[in-house]
């Protein structure tokens, strides 16, 4: 029976002419290994470009806004921020969740896409991981200074103090301390470990003494030996495996900050997956915002190809739609749950005192990314970049909507209030973009922007069974 069927299938196969699968190469123009090494190392080894200095100085000036805002806050008191009853969290939590969310795409690219064997991740993962680390640093500023007396912030950690009181582990805010500090640490470890072989390449190419010492120190004596690679690959895979549940847990725990509270609009089980999807969405938005200019400035079109941009756009589209679904589902459950407070919270979100923020959020997060359905738009790099900015803006507003609409109008109208940020709030947040840019520019200047060994591994020359 089966033999007869096989023959039949064979006959059919003879008649049809299957379309050949066109595998788009990940590195264009048949580049060789030497080209990749020279390109990536060349960025670090060449003379500092003038534009870099201009960007760096501008970024430093912007970063000083955060510095001044924080100095003013510490010397005066946390009251210089606009948060007060009933909105006690204000911009601090919004900015914290915004920056933490940005970081998530880096871990997604480096860890989740590694486990899923998505080879296109290789040319963008280093810069995205750098983005993760820097975004988490920016995020940390806000809860740290929101505690008011920042010199006691170490009480958050389980360290013995003069009051002989320990942290209270039932609090989601304490879980946050563990989640975010673990996330920062593991992201740095993963980022650093991936850089070791590239540091060794830079060390071996270095001519100046300081470079030999700098890269030599961080390369730890890496020798490109197969025994090294064997343990390295295993460690890389394990770190990817560890980072995947980590990244999912971090934004889950961040969402617990809200979901564990008994407030209408916050107390919902949809929060963890909805926050994680939103985080990945905003993170990819930021990856596009950062990498498209980097690609243009350093001429990396052969390494970050249209395929990479397409894929990133499609992930943005998918997660943006997921977020849109979550918005709709929240409304549905508010109605279906028949709780009048919950119902009010959502009507208030869309049509209440912060209606404008809700509609900015919906247009940036749900409507804007739908443009990525069209190939023409994905191929229009400047337009992709503009949409990515909208994604960043939308996701900031999402956190603003969640945190503020609920707090400003909860159960009793007598305790309602309207929250506005002060100029200190605005300056401090604005400055974090400068702080982030300073770190990212330093990264571009001194560290290998792409994992050369990984990019080379996905080139056809890496195949030990092919003739090249």
């Amino acid at each position: 029976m089966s033999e007869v069927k096989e023959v039949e299938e064979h006959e059919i196969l003879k008649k049809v002419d299957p379309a050949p699968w066109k595998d788009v190469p990940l590195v264009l123009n048949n580049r060789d290994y030497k080209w990749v090494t020279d390109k990536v190392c060349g960025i670090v080894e060449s003379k500092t470009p003038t534009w870099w200095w201009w960007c760096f100085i501008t970024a430093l000036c912007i970063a000083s806004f955060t510095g001044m805002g924080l100095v003013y806050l510490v010397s005066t008191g946390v009251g210089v921020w606009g948060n007060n009853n009933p909105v006690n969290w204000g911009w601090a939590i919004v900015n914290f969740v915004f920056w933490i969310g940005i970081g998530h795409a880096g871990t997604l690219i480096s860890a989740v896409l590694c486990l899923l064997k998505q080879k296109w991740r290789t040319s963008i993962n280093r810069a995205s991981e750098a983005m993760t680390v820097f975004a988490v640093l920016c995020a940390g500023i806000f809860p740290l200074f929101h505690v008011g007396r920042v010199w006691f912030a170490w009480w958050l950690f389980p360290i013995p103090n003069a009051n002989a009181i320990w942290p209270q582990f039932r609090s989601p805010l304490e879980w946050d301390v563990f989640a975010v500090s673990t996330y920062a640490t593991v992201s740095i470890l993963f980022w650093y470990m991936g850089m070791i072989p590239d540091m060794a390449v830079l060390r071996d190419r270095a001519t100046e003494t300081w470079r030999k010492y700098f890269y030599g120190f961080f390369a730890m004596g890496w020798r490109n030996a197969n025994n090294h690679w064997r343990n390295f690959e295993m460690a890389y895979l394990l770190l990817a495996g560890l980072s995947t549940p980590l990244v999912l847990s971090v934004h889950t725990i961040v969402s617990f900050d809200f979901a564990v509270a008994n407030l209408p609009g916050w107390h919902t089980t949809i929060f963890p997956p909805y926050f994680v999807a939103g985080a990945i969405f905003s993170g990819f938005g930021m990856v596009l915002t950062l990498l498209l200019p980097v690609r243009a400035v350093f001429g990396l079109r052969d390494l970050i190809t249209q395929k990479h941009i397409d894929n990133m756009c499609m992930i943005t589209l998918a997660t943006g739609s997921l977020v849109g679904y979550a918005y709709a589902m929240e409304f549905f459950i508010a109605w279906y749950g028949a709780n009048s407070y919950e119902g009010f919270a959502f009507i208030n979100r869309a049509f209440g005192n912060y209606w404008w923020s809700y509609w900015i959020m919906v247009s940036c997060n749900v409507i804007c990314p739908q443009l990525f359905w069209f190939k023409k738009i994905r191929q229009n790099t400047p337009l992709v970049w503009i949409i990515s900015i909208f994604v960043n803006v939308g996701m900031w507003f999402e956190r603003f909507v969640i945190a503020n609409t609920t707090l400003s109008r909860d159960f009793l109208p007598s305790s309602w209030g309207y929250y506005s940020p002060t100029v200190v709030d605005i300056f401090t947040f604005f400055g974090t973009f400068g702080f982030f840019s300073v770190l990212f520019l330093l990264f571009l200047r001194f560290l290998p922007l792409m994992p050369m060994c990984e990019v080379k591994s996905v080139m056809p020359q890496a195949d030990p069974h092919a003739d090249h």
Partner: protein
Amino acid sequence: MSDIMDIKYAAAATFSSAKELYDAAGKVKEKGYSNWECFSPIPVHGLDAQMGYARSKVPRFTLAGGVTGFFTGMLIVWFMNEFDYPLIVGGKPYFSPIYPFPVFYELTILFAAFGTLFGMFFLNRLPRHNHPVFEHPDFGRTGDDKFMIVIEVEDPKYDDEETVSFLQEVGGQSVQIIREPIV
């Protein structure tokens, strides 16, 4: 004493593609050498099996780290909220393995990640900032686009002439002896 002396470390041959390295490695293994190593700019797929390497032992360190992290988390919470300074929160038990689970979870991952990184360093015997193989003039190219096989003098089968000619036979280019200077 101004003389710089050196000792012989190994014979090295370079190759220009992953395929050449892979095929040559199989022959070196077949010949019965034991103290030898391949160098490549990328982790060459399948080379471990070709060289007869077993699976990496890094996962053991990861597991040890993870288990330590989980129990450290439990110990911290139990000690702090039940033993040393019992905290009443909402009239609930001082300690339970459920409510602080996020803490155990994060510490499991944190310690496992440190275990992985340090396990990798330990198994690779790093940091080691000096190594005789760095004396090879083309060593830097192994991070760029060259592949290399190095057979150490310590190998019982090593013989100056024989090993060099063997490396040439298997396709090695610019076969040379690496010498480690002793000042």
